[in-house]
């Protein structure tokens, strides 16, 4: 993997629903490997990136951090903002998992618990927005 390539978690859609995958790649030449591993692991707990990547190849160029997430580990910093705890709880609640011949399978689209994860939604949820109430209305 070239130095310039960013680590990532494979994400995908199934029809009109979007999912964060449970596989990905860590670039061990990352400038801050500890932060990278924590960032990618938090994806596996259901958290979305708080930046948009317009590079098309995952490289650092063309990244725009969502407003309010400049110091957040899923955006441009090292902190963990309060809104993520809510997302992790929502993630856990929205995990009806089925067991089939492939073992346990995630069945919940991440758009159910995290508005910012939905493709096309580029502003993320700011910690001060009424995220929870809006989620309830949406359901």
């Amino acid at each position, binding site marked *: 993997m070239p130095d310039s390539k960013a680590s990532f978690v494979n994400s995908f859609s199934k029809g009109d629903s979007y999912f964060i995958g449970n596989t990905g790649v860590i670039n061990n030449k990352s400038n801050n490997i500890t932060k990278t591993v924590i960032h990618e692991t938090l994806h596996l707990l259901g958290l979305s990136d708080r930046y948009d990547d317009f590079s*098309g*190849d995952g490289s650092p160029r*063309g990244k725009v951090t969502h407003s309010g997430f400049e110091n957040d580990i899923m955006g441009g910093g090292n902190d963990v903002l309060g809104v993520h705890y809510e997302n992790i709880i929502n993630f856990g609640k929205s995990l009806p998992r089925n067991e089939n011949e492939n073992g346990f399978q995630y069945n919940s689209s991440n758009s159910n618990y995290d508005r910012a994860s939905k*493709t096309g939604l580029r502003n993320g949820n700011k910690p001060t927005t009424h995220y929870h109430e809006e989620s309830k209305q949406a359901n």
Partner: protein
Amino acid sequence: MEINRQHIIMRNLNKQTKLLVLLLSMFFFINCHNKENFQEIALLDSYTVHQNGRYNLNIYLLDKYNKRKSLKENLESQDSIRCYILIVDKKKYNHIEKLKEKIHKQYILCDVSVKLVNDKYHEFKVEKNIIKIQNSKFKCDFYMVFDDFDSFKINTFLNDGIDSIHLVE
């Protein structure tokens, strides 16, 4: 007399053996079509993944597609659908987006060729779901291929498509 009977039995046996070999050969060749490299008609859905800044392509393969029938009729005749999820480059993504815009559909119908690097395609992680297309429900196996493929090519754009695919469960 006895020798003649034995001769006839042996001749018949020989015929049966030949028939058996023929049937076994036919079975072998019918089942040995190359599953790693395929050319089929498929519905394509390209999208950006803001999680990782990459471009995904979902290829919903429509087995046994009959070009004389309409897309609607072909969909009605499908038992199940296989969907391969690939990561494509920006050039391919833009090309597919232009085709989408041309017919104002989210999923476009194309004749595609795909060459998978993994020589046992069934070893890709598979998730089994049910999807709904135009009021019909289908079993759909999603193959998580991502980067592990060699080439993808659109042979022909069939100037048709659909608006939505809904994940049921």
